[in-house]
């Protein structure tokens, strides 16, 4: 692991992926950052200088001002306008303001005007309110809102009567951002007087003003304005937003209004109630919500409970626990689910109890929460309870220990593995599969030896899981099982040996091929035929597989041996192409079915050697193996591998075009052939 860590140390100089370009020059980097990277090559020295942050800001500003006043190209002017956002001062404002009426350039100018400090930009934007028309006027109004220019409130208020609805809406939103008594009063009046499309924006302006008041601690003023909006004839979404604000502005006194929304038949108000239920602080609010839950319609109860669970105060857990203990099934299930997130060790008895009830949904929810409960020392508490539990609770605890990977629970689990209760035993076996290691292997073997037929499958699964984690060193522990007098146990032993791997395990499985019991022989052969070959210590499987292929006791053994051997050849990497080819050739007389030849073709398709092509050409002449051979030939010949001449590749691909019936294979071959020719 140390070497891995060394390799993966972020400070390591060894790159695993492409590294970033180094030492990009400063100016080039800034050019790439700028909007006009695509046309950077056209930039002259003056422009480059304006982009260089190492040039003093005042100098840059003067150059940029000169540029935007010049007859420079539009692209250069746009960039210069934007650059003034970084270095512009009051000096640049008159020149920037000159662009405010332009549909093309006003935004570029406002980028700078919105961020240049001081009164000059405010004055320029205010002045533009009377000179700029059309769409650019909306932009000017927006920028005033962004800068929150209090002096602009009055001129903006006059825009609330503008004939263009978009201008009115923009002014309302800008006034909302600016806030204050004047803006709020004007918006309120406008809300009462205006009809039509702008009412929504005016209401939004009011809500923005109220929001600012609330943030500044002026809750009463905020509440009054929110109430005005929620009682006005405005779109329902604005009413909902104002209602949320009205609830929050009232503080804990907003509980009644909140509960009213949770009972509302209006979907928007009910939805905003669910959101406000998460936001309005206070334990009293939590308690009120908890009391209200059961009076709601069933399809609302669990949703409100979820909202309650998202609150963060001391009243949440007692409320949720009460529902988890006793509530209509759907509400109870929700509460039990919620405990996973809000619960702590105090919930364990309740969860264990619920996990034993007959209602399947309730029990499952309780078990799931037990598996994931994470506040407090949950594992220690479960460990404490595990040995002293009784009845169904034992199974619940074993399952929880398993799900939570509590390895210290293994002694208790082993004890329960011999209990008279079949359900408990099954849970214990599954826990052993999840938790057990080499130390438990002997105990599981012993359990298997004395297991009833009913328990054997689960125990075998446990043993296989443990074996898969234990490695070759565990093979000796399995030997007694592999040599047991009961043939079915001997078979289990073979499967477990395959899972641990290694030379010792392999030798035992090879020996079992000659077992006195035919069923064990079959199992041994099957196990050998699928023996993993990517472990260097398992290469010894090749010889016995070939022996089986040549002289297996049954035709099935020969077939399995041959298949296993070919798969072994397909996977090995430590021998050269010629040697691998010779080994495939050696198996040719043993092939009795087209399946076997097709597998051989697949193996040959991964051997870049001229001999492989020759053999595949032979397969291509047989209707049963032609398609597999053509596919393998294509795989070999499409690549310009040094092992093949162009002529050999061309010939192979021509055979594919002649013999294959697969459109895909023919297409690949045809394309490759064209490239060669």
């Amino acid at each position: 692991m140390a070497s891995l860590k060394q390799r993966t140390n972020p400070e390591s100089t060894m790159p695993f992926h492409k590294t970033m370009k180094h030492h990009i020059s400063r100016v080039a980097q800034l050019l790439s950052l700028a909007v006009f990277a695509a046309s950077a090559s056209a930039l002259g020295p003056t422009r480059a200088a304006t982009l260089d942050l190492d040039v003093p800001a005042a100098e840059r500003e003067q150059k940029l001002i000169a540029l935007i006043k010049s007859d420079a190209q539009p692209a250069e002017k746009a960039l210069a306008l934007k650059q003034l956002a970084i270095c512009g001062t009051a000096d640049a404002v008159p020149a920037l303001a000159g662009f405010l009426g332009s549909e093309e350039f006003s935004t570029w100018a406002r980028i700078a005007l919105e961020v240049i400090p001081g009164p000059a930009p405010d004055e320029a934007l205010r002045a533009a309110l009377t000179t700029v028309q059309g769409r650019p006027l909306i932009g000017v109004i927006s920028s005033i809102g962004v800068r929150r220019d209090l002096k602009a409130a009055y001129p903006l208020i006059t825009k609330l009567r503008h004939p263009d609805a978009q201008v009115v809406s923009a002014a309302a939103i800008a006034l909302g951002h600016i806030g204050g008594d004047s803006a709020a009063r004007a918006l309120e009046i406008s809300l009462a007087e205006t009809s039509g499309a702008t009412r929504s924006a005016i209401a939004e302006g009011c809500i923005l003003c109220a929001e600012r008041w609330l943030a500044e601690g002026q809750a009463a003023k905020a509440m009054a304005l929110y109430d005005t909006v929620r009682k006005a004839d405005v779109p329902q979404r604005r009413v909902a937003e104002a209602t949320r604000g009205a609830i929050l502005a009232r503080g804990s006194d907003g509980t009644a209004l909140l509960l009213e929304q949770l009972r509302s038949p209006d979907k928007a108000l009910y939805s905003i109630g669910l959101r406000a239920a998460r936001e309005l602080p206070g334990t009293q609010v939590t308690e009120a919500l908890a009391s209200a839950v059961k009076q709601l319609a069933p399809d609302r109860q669990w949703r409100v409970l979820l909202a309650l669970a998202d609150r963060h105060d001391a009243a949440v857990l007692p409320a949720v626990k009460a529902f988890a203990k006793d509530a209509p099934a759907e509400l109870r299930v929700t509460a039990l689910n919620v405990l996973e997130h809000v619960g702590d060790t105090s919930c364990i008895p309740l969860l264990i109890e619920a996990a034993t009830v007959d209602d399947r949904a309730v029990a499952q929810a309780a078990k799931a929460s037990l598996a994931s409960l994470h506040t407090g020392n949950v594992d220690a508490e479960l460990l404490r309870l595990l040995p002293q539990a009784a009845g169904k609770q034992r199974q619940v605890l074993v399952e929880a220990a398993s799900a939570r990977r509590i390895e210290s629970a293994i002694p208790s689990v082993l004890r329960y593995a011999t209990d008279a209760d079949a359900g408990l035993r099954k849970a214990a076996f599954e826990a052993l599969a999840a938790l057990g290691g080499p130390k438990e292997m002997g105990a599981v073997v012993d359990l298997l030896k004395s297991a009833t037929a009913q328990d054997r499958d689960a125990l075998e699964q446990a043993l296989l899981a443990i074996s898969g984690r234990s490695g070759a060193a565990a093979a000796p522990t399995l030997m007694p099982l592999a040599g047991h007098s009961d043939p079915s146990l001997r078979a289990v032993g073979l499967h477990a040996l395959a899972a641990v791997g290694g030379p010792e395990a392999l030798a035992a499985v090879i020996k079992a091929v000659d077992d006195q019991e035919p069923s064990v022989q079959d199992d041994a052969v099957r196990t050998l035929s699928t023996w993993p070959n990517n472990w260097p210590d398992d290469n010894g499987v090749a010889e016995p597989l070939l022996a089986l292929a040549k002289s297996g006791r049954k035709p099935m053994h020969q077939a399995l041996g041959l298949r296993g051997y070919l798969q072994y050849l397909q996977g090995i990497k430590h021998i050269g192409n010629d040697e691998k080819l010779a080994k495939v050739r050696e198996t040719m007389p043993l092939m009795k079915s087209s399946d076997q030849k097709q597998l051989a073709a697949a193996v040959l398709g991964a051997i870049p050697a001229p001999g492989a092509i020759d053999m595949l050409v032979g397969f291509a002449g047989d209707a049963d193996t032609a398609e597999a051979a053509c596919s393998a030939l294509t795989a070999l010949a499409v690549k310009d591998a040094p092992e093949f001449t162009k002529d050999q590749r061309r010939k192979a691909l021509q055979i594919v075009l002649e013999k294959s019936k697969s459109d895909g294979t023919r297409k690949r071959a045809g394309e490759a052939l064209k490239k060669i020719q």
Partner: protein
Amino acid sequence: MSAIDNQMNRRRFLKRTFPVGAMLLAPQIVAPSVLGKGGGVAPSERVVLGGIGIGGRGSYVLGCFLQEPDVRFVAVAEVKAQRRQAVKQMADTRYGNTDCATYRDLRELLARNDIDAVLIATGPNWHAAASMLAARAGKDVYCEKPCAKTIMDSLALADTFRRTGRVFQAGTQRRSLPNFAYAVDLARRGRLGKLKTLHAHPAGLETKMSGWLPAETEPPKEEVDWDLYLGPAAWRPFNRRLLDGFNFEKGGGMVGGGCLEWGSHCVDLCQWANDADDTSPIEYERKGDRLHARYANGVELVVRNDGWLPLGSCPVRFEGETGWVETGDNGDLVASDDALLAGKGVRISGYPADFHVRNFLDCVKTRGQPRANAEVACWSHITCNAANIALFLDRKVQYDPKKNEFINDEEANRLRGEAWREPWQA
């Protein structure tokens, strides 16, 4: 075969994947009553969905929505005629009718009262503006990342969704994948010891923004509505090469770029690991090819491109005083000690969005906060944008997450926002 490959052999794979431990990503809790009899969806529980700007990535995410039984996709708004028709065909094929409505202008779609939620997958330039428009129109929003191209837009996004009470999910779907969640869980529960350093792979720190190209003849609005395509971005003449959507004003603004593009995923995961979903680092500085940032709790964030394990794209690495964990898009987890990985969830590779989409839909129904809600997205985007500003200025900058301003740094503060083109208004 490398040491790492050796570790990934079949036996180890078996060991790692059996059995599945406790679910770290608990599903949003939705009661069975949301489903009608026979597994059908009760009409009151159906989410009526619209799409805005659905191209390649959007079509994939839309596919995730369409496979959910409680979704009914009814309309698409798209400035390009070809894409409008492709999305309509996709929806109509799914439902076996010709009902999917098409709009050029997103405002027409947002004006429909029957639509509950929208999927926004325009180019990044539009993400924040379209999301806020949708929220103000009373829609819940699933929006592809990056969600906001400036610090001010990030804040406005969170404010808007808070004020309107709408549900927002950023398309940072790695928040809903078990390997990333498991790594984050190790960090947050202290199983790596006291957290020291978080590493994020942004897939490039330099911007690749397109910009102002020579003017070409503008196509008819029905074919491509250039004015709507530009949306809140400053005007420039039509040029077909700018229609790629993905690169147009990527990250936007004066700075933007690579850190924001992928950082919205990997930096976001680091924020999560540091339990910093409501804040950002306080200091940022370029060091060579890397960006180093420091949180108020002392944890360091390193945004870097090199030195990663081969765990697929978008990797993250969390280092504590006693251990480390690294994971990426191939779904594998590697840790300083195998014991740290006991109990990890199922391996899911290829960063699918299904789980994230489901989480969003469940929250639409419960009005709870999705995993990548507007607040979460706001802070991860602030972090990425602040990092970009430090890279652009090429010097250390200090940030106050309470005031949301750079400390004694007017130059940096000027880069926090960028004006929107009229008539669009934040």
